């Protein structure tokens, strides 16, 4: 692909290489968001509801980590997964799982920090009811996450936006290998370096369209869910 063609032609002709790239981008970013949600939502909720020494500092740290530079995360994951690094034996460097790990590290603080804020606000609002229901700490966490589920969609979308948009981490740990670890963002970086700016911009527009579509789907699902929940 990608010789003297425009992105529009690639989309219209159903170019298999382009679709493989789009599929990999979505696979990597969705997997990272799922993993980050499994870690970040319980973590954020726990911090919201628990009193412990240094809690204010942890919250400040968590909020700050939302701004982790992708290139630094990429480098750290690279050094960890490299054959010469502590997890080198697994042979994960330059594979899609390496990219999922790097994006999970980037997305987890975003989901955890936004969850913490949402749950804490709810807790302040419903403290008396929840106390009256006589739930244990785990029960409270579960009840509040369930109550906040529609708001938490926004946290997941923020995480997905971060993952789908970043190039700094995955280009280091994935290696931008054609047909294997090349995603939308690394393909855009490559076409830019080849001086094919129109194709790079075209691919960028395709990426933006995909992100909008994902957000529209999530919004529709949230509205439908809210209506069902009454």
């Amino acid at each position, binding site marked *: 692909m990608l010789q003297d063609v425009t992105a529009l032609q690639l989309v219209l002709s159903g170019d298999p290489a382009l679709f493989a790239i789009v599929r990999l981008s979505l696979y990597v970013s969705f997997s990272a968001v799922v993993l980050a949600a499994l*870690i970040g939502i319980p973590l954020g909720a726990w911090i919201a509801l628990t009193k412990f020494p240094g809690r204010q500092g942890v919250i400040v740290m968590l909020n700050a980590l939302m701004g982790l530079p992708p290139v630094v995360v990429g480098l750290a994951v690279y050094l960890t997964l490299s054959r010469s690094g502590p997890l080198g034996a697994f042979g994960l460097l330059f594979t899609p799982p390496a990219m999922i790990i790097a994006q999970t590290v980037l997305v987890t603080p975003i989901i955890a920090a936004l969850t913490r804020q949402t749950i804490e606000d709810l807790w302040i609002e419903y403290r008396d009811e929840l106390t009256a229901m006589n739930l244990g700490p785990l029960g409270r966490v579960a009840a509040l996450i369930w109550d906040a589920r529609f708001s938490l969609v926004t946290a997941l979308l923020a995480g997905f936006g971060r993952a789908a948009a970043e190039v700094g981490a995955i280009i280091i740990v994935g290696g931008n*290998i054609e047909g294997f670890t090349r995603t939308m963002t690394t393909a855009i970086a490559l076409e830019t370096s080849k*001086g094919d700016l129109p194709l790079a911009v075209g691919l960028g527009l395709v990426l933006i369209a995909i992100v909008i579509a994902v957000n529209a789907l999530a919004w529709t699902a949230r509205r439908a869910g809210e209506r069902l929940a009454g």
Partner: protein
Amino acid sequence: MNMLTRRSLIAVTASLVFAGHAFAQDKSIVVASTTSTQDSGLFGHILPMFKAKTGIDVKVVAQGTGQALDTARRGDADVVFVHAKPAEEKFLAEGFGVKRYPVMYNDFILIGPKADPAGIKGSRDIVAALSAIKTKGADFISRGDKSGTHQAELNLWKVAGIDIAKDKGPWYKEIGQGMGAALNTASASNAYVLADRGTWLSFKNRNELGIAVEGDKRLFNQYGVMLVNPAKHPSVKKDLGQQFIDWLVSSEGQKAIADYKINGEQLFYPNASDSGA
């Protein structure tokens, strides 16, 4: 963290590791190479032929020569295919490579704006041209990334008797990026830049840029290939890697390289038979 989350976390981690193994088990090798071999489209041309013959997937990680050698030093590649002979020989001397095979050559060219502020267009003397650029203070973009092209550029300044680290002025801009990015920067700021011919031929965003100096024998650009030493890194797939090297230097591989053309112009000239290259 509740039990369910913990279980799913373990399951996901396990599947990640398993997926990594699945990805690592197939018949494939990782080749650390330079941006010039990838951006010029050479790999896109020759790798499908190699795959058809052997069934081996070659995964190319395109970096500057310095970074590619470092990737290999860490054991993260099976084969390294670069263009900076002194750096390659150092890599061998350190014991990270098994043997260096010359593969092909092309040449560097000095790219510059049509307006030609240094007055060097059409010259065949790269050393005089660099001296003129410095004297006139004409804008010059340096890769600044320890790539093969960057090392060749530094060497040419030295040959011109210019200590660039000391003598550089605001006209000399080190951008620390790949060949394509350097050409984009030169294109946007009408500056001179040293490039490999392969990347230039396939580069599209030229604007006012054209070839200013070519044909000086000091602009020769040799590519070599090496298997990463399995004695240093047992994870190296030595049989598959050696198959790739053997194919590159075979008459079939050499012909595939010679056949790669853009607009009728040959990009790389095979010379595996020249043991001194």
